[in-house]
């Protein structure tokens, strides 16, 4: 089922176009990868297709009658580890975002159940900053899933993880997609995108000042071919 459909849309800030999209779709159980250099407009694209940024032109349609619940998995390396917080505090952040004052007492069981499902319940009292990158990322994913989103946005999910933690996280994300969750993965890692994505939005930066980036939607196979060609040329 299609959740969001984007046609010929332009997104930007203050009247200045940043990224142009010809066609994109977010569907249940579907993974959209977003690839592109820094500054190409990856965040703007996500804000645009999720409705946080009003489009400048074109069309963004949502499935009528379906309430969109957007989840977000932050980069564990972007977390400010000088904050004193336990594993539970970190996992409860996503659900606290949906509560008026951020209180999560009523939802503690949902967070703990999600932590148990991902095998990190034992970390609930441990200082978050002293956990490994893999443990931190699983805790954050447990928190994001506890809020029961129907679209989960992941920002560089495997950045800084060791091989085993990366493999484990990618398997978890594949499981989530298999259970019907729509995922949007922002990544510079070609292997991650090839493993997870059903479709890849490749952002090509503007060639001239004042122009917008262009979002090209391609299949993973086509993306792999293009990347191989690029490497051969180099």
């Amino acid at each position: 089922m299609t959740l969001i459909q984007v046609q010929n849309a332009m997104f930007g800030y203050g009247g200045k176009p940043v990224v142009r999209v010809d066609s994109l779709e977010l569907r249940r159980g579907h993974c959209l990868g977003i690839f592109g250099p820094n500054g190409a407009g990856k965040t703007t694209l996500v804000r645009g297709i999720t409705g946080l940024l009003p489009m400048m032109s074109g069309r963004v349609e949502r499935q009528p009658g379906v309430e969109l619940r957007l989840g977000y998995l932050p980069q564990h390396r972007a977390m400010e580890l000088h904050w004193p917080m336990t594993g539970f505090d970190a996992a409860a952040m996503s659900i606290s975002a949906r509560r008026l004052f951020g209180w999560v007492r009523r939802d503690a069981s949902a967070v703990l159940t999600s932590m148990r499902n991902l095998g990190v319940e034992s970390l609930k009292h441990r200082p978050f900053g002293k956990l490994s990158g893999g443990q931190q990322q699983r805790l954050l994913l447990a928190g994001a899933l506890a809020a029961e989103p129907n679209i989960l946005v992941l920002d560089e999910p495997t950045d800084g993880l060791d091989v085993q933690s990366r493999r484990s996280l990618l398997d978890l994300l594949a499981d989530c997609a298999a259970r019907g969750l729509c995922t949007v993965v922002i990544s510079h890692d070609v292997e991650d995108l090839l493993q997870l994505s059903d479709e890849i939005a490749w952002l090509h930066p503007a060639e001239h000042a004042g122009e917008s980036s262009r979002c090209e939607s391609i299949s993973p196979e086509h993306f792999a071919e293009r990347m191989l060609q690029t490497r051969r040329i180099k």
Partner: protein
Amino acid sequence: MRVVVVLLICLSAFSTTAAVDRATQAALNDIDSSVTPATKPAGTTLKRSESSGESPRIEWLPLLSLFAPMLAAAVAVGVAGGIAGTFVLLRREALLALAMPQVVAVGAAVGLRNHWPTLPPAIVAAAGALIFLVTSRRRGSGPWVLPALYIAGLSISFLVIASKGQDVADLQKLFTGIDVAVAPSDAALAVPILLVVGITLAVLWRRWLLMAQAPAAAELAGLHPARWDALFLILLTTILLMGTNVLGVVMVLAMLFLPAATALPWARSVPVALIAAAVLALIFLGVGFAVSNLMQWPLSQTIGGVGFGFVVVSHLGARFL
């Protein structure tokens, strides 16, 4: 284990104070014998014992009664400042907290010059600075804003009342907090506001955590990080404004930074850090008040000194234990 260590630090500080007291009592006795009652510092009630040669003792009850409005305001500033200071350090907003009292002082100087109450112009100055800060942050202005505000506040407040003898002295008192006297009406206004703002900041701790760690998650959930950032600045500015107006810059900054800096190395969660900072602020106040009266030292600076001692011990303990 860490809680036990914190308690030990507190106990050792108290015992150190007691030792200082015994050592200084003899000195006070000598001073007391050479100083006539007319020249004794105001607010300190030293009383000679019946038998000659014994140390003078302070009558604490009359002293507490005399300073009740100031102590009530200081308790409120301690609780609110301890809580706010924890978030100030965690959010790395220390420069903002340093600059804002200087801006408040500009308003106070305008009030002193025109013989108005100092609070309304201080509110106007703080609100103006706050609006400027929030808009400059939204526009992504550079790191020059806060240092410039700090220097501007420090300079303009004195320029406003330059060559106004007594007013300059009053402004200096506001900055240094050497002569802390609070009118009951000022305390009645400041105490409830400070406590409500402090408790509001504490209740919203998960919101501040979310905004610091994952503003994108907050945005996707329909929250506006910029508005929450503005709310934090408003609450912090309220504490700095009310605190500076009643107790002066030094006391407010001491209560804002030092309890939080002492508590944070030991805290494993934000609520623990908040409670510890509020309790430590009250300990600093109690110890500082006692020492300042025993030693005839200015109160704000004594609290700052006591607090800094705790900070050093806390960080050394956290490093080596």
